[in-house]
């Protein structure tokens, strides 16, 4: 797995040699602060927890994660470096995993930098830090799900704008799959079991469960299998049409 680590290190370092990392982290921290304090009523609620903070994550990620994932493969295609990469002795799995893990690790760094909020809530009251930790784990897993979707879609185009918009669209489908806008699309024709399956795909439902502090193996399994599925599709898509 050594080439995976080599790709991982190059990609992660790549975020910090350009302004991408700093812009992303600043906007992520600012937005999550604004949402928590102004729209989440963090102070007014008078409760020592981070619910207002985490409840916005599915929506925040919906817009910010595609901005990270859009360049993963589309950029390689556009610059032609995909030819350099895949004529080196590296397998498809190693390359896809290396890039994905770097992007995920970068999101993790951004998420970890929200720690002042955790300190704040610990100064103001006595929160259940177990629940907060579970929420962080859930948020990171959900980010991985968004990233895997975005990485796969990025591998289908050389245009980053298309990758961004399509990732946002597909991610929204998963985010809202338990709710009328998505379910109505399936209601008219899909058999009941499929409808039920679609309803259980909702990021909101699974994340909500985790962020209440209930770490259910099924929720973890949901995100893990979602990531695995999209990365597999990613590798397949690259294998079939990497030279196009």
């Amino acid at each position, binding site marked *: 797995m050594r080439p995976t680590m*080599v790709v991982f290190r190059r990609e992660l370092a790549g975020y910090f040699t350009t302004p991408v990392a700093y812009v992303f982290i600043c906007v992520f921290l600012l937005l999550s602060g604004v949402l928590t304090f102004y729209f989440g009523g963090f102070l007014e609620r008078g409760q020592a927890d981070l619910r207002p903070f985490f409840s916005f994550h599915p929506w925040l990620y919906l817009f910010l994660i595609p901005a990270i994932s859009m360049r993963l493969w589309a950029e390689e295609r556009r*610059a*032609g470096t995909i*030819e*350099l990469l895949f*004529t*080196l*002795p590296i397998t498809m799995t190693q390359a896809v995993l290396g890039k994905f893990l770097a992007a995920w690790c970068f999101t993790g760094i951004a998420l970890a930098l929200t720690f002042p909020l955790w300190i704040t809530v610990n100064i103001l009251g006595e929160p259940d830090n177990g629940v907060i930790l579970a929420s962080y784990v859930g948020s990171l897993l959900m980010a991985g799900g968004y990233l895997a979707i975005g990485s796969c879609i990025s591998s289908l185009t050389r245009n980053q704008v298309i990758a961004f918009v399509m990732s946002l669209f597909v991610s929204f489908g998963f985010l809202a799959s338990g709710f009328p806008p998505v379910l109505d699309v399936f209601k008219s024709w899909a058999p009941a079991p499929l409808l039920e399956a679609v309803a259980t795909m909702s990021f909101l439902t699974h994340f909500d469960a985790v962020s209440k502090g209930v770490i259910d193996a099924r929720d973890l399994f949901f995100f893990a299998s979602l990531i695995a599925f999209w990365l597999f599709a990613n590798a397949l898509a690259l294998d079939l049409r990497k030279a196009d």
Partner: protein
Amino acid sequence: MSASIDIQHLVKRFGDFTAVDDVSFGVQSGEVLGFLGPNGAGKSTTMRMITGFIAPTGGKVAVCGHDIATDAIAAKRAIGYLPEGAPTYPDMTPAGLMRFVGQIRGFGGAELGRRVDAAGEKANLRSVLNQRIETLSKGYKRRLGLALAILHDPAVLIMDEPTDGLDPNQKHEVRELIQEMAADKVIVLSTHILEEVHAVCSRAIVIARGKIVADGTPSELEARSRYHNAVSLSVGAASASAAGGALAGLANVFEVEALESADGRARFRVFPRDGQSIVDDVGQLAREQQWEVAELHVEQGRLDEVFRDITARGEGGAA
């Protein structure tokens, strides 16, 4: 196992379009193979199949005995590849990118540093090692691509237009580098520049519309030219009128072409029948007739003419 490439019945179709159509050839250690052909003839597609970037529709490629389809990693370890346009990551530095490629190829520690230094040295990148690649000129980017290809001292070196975008001095350096490395490697390079074939290649394959249309040494290809063994001479104005007729009367002469003359002399190009050597006959005639000969030389043959001739065939001669 000594270096080799073995290609059997390689076919690549994109939809209805056949880019590479039943191509077979082998290259052995010590050979420098020039891959010639018009744009879109299938040169790059063939190279991409040899290096495992795209999968063939049919046929087999073995690099140093490793099948690129079933044993891709081993084959790719043996190959150094400069893709068309020498793509590189613009945000990185040449040193950083060489280290990245070296690490993927399994080098680490002092060995990695030594390899990066050596490749940077060979490709003449010393002065830009720590600049961002996007700020470099086209020539530097091309040489960086070359450095990445030779970093692991590969048994098989494949280069898609290695001298494209280089100035004449840089072209010369790259050709010298190729010649230095040629002894114990298989080298395949594609080019549009026919003089390059002369300068570095021990063998040339001409490909047109996906098929091999010629395969031989550069001299063998030149021998196909109607200029091969033709004799150019210029004589004093006094003997000009007689000379044309006398030359055309020689037994092995096929045709005499009068060229535009300068400084009062008449110039002729004499084409032989079937590429025979006629220089002795022409020389003897000139002595007998006591022409005042100012210039006399034998032409080698013109690759560009041969190239145009064999690649335009089948297009109604329109190209």
